[in-house]
């Protein structure tokens, strides 16, 4: 069997709801463990071990929530748009479910980044909010998420909702490079990107390591919460199939 055929078969197997239901259970179990460890390490490192900043003092520690939340807001949006696109083209049900269930998580990360940024902005800049290119494009991202969520509940038929949502997500993806490069293209009050060069980070090592832990914690938190939501929707979606009925029978036997 050729490699292409193998990949093709694996892709289809992975996308089958039953197979995914089983494998996602294992993935989420490991992800939650990594998440808890990284959260404890990141918070301890960031709030206790890391030294205060030479300019901002202790206020800079808001970074340990703000930066991972902002990165995840962008990352989740890309996942949502790509999954939506796959669902649109190949009509893969699982991709539609992943896209739909990423939206509330991504919206929460966006909200967290906006709020933590405002709390940080007041003591450092002197203002909670300014209408510079970075902040404005990030607010648009929040509205894109809200629009997507609203669109999902506007349709009776889940497959129609998924298709409409995918188009909105794909149209909105143009905002992602704008957010990323806004601090380079235009003069903004927001600082430049902290990791513009991998070899020469602008954050001191003692402050950077806890940040990496926090980024991993946020990432695995997304994986865990997404899989829980996806598994629930798979059961709902497939409630008439024999494997779900079998699963329910097994569950009842165990509990009785």
């Amino acid at each position, binding site marked *: 069997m050729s490699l292409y055929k193998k990949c093709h078969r694996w892709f289809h197997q992975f996308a089958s709801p039953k197979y995914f239901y089983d494998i996602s259970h294992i993935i989420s179990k490991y992800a939650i463990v990594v998440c808890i460890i990284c959260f404890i390490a990141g918070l301890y490192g960031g709030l206790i071990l890391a030294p205060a900043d030479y300019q901002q003092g202790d206020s800079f520690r808001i970074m340990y929530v703000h930066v991972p939340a902002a990165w995840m807001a962008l990352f989740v949006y890309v996942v949502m748009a790509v999954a939506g696109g796959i669902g649109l083209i190949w009509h893969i049900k699982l991709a539609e479910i992943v896209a739909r269930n990423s939206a509330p998580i991504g919206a929460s990360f966006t909200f967290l980044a906006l709020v933590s940024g405002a709390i940080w902005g007041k003591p450092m800049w002197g203002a909670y909010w300014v209408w510079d290119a970075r902040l404005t494009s990030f607010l648009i991202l929040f509205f894109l998420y809200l629009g997507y969520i609203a669109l999902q509940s506007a349709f009776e038929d889940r497959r129609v909702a998924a298709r409409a949502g995918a188009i909105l997500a*794909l149209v909105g993806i143009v905002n992602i490079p704008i957010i990323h490069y806004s*601090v380079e293209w235009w003069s903004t009050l927001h600082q*430049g990107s902290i990791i513009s060069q991998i070899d020469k980070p*602008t954050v001191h090592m003692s402050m950077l390591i806890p940040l990496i832990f926090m980024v991993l914690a946020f990432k695995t938190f997304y994986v865990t919460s997404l899989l829980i939501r996806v598994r629930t929707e798979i059961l709902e979606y497939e409630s008439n199939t024999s494997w779900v009925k079998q699963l329910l029978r097994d569950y009842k036997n165990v509990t009785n």
Partner: protein
Amino acid sequence: MTPRKKRIVIVCSILAGMALAATLILTAFEKNLLYFYSPTQVIAGETPTERSFRIGGLVLNDSVKRNTDNLEVSFVLTDTVNEITVTFEGILPDLFREGQGIVANGKLDADNVFKAEEVLAKHDENYMPPEVAQALEDAGAKIPESHDAAQ
């Protein structure tokens, strides 16, 4: 063309169309997307005269003069090429200090003095412990300024 190929083409054209539209819009509004003007742009007369606008730059060393009777303060803002004198009455943010990047919102008066109504501090992407900053200073190295603070 199979229906699937058709859908791929549709998705790609949505992406291409949006990218093109965004590029055109952002190019058209380029000037309006600048959050602040530099002292050089102010001196070149690129800034609005009637309405207020924002000016950004570094506070020149030894230029901050405080009035002893009230909250009035004046300082010189520089982009390392040109300088503009700024006056402000009010409470400055914690990060305001000489050598710091700031953004001020206000109007230019007839004598080319910028009357600020609001002063915001800008900080850059460099984070380090005070000891490291001190060591850098002692070694004579300038703490790298963010490229856009001095723009």
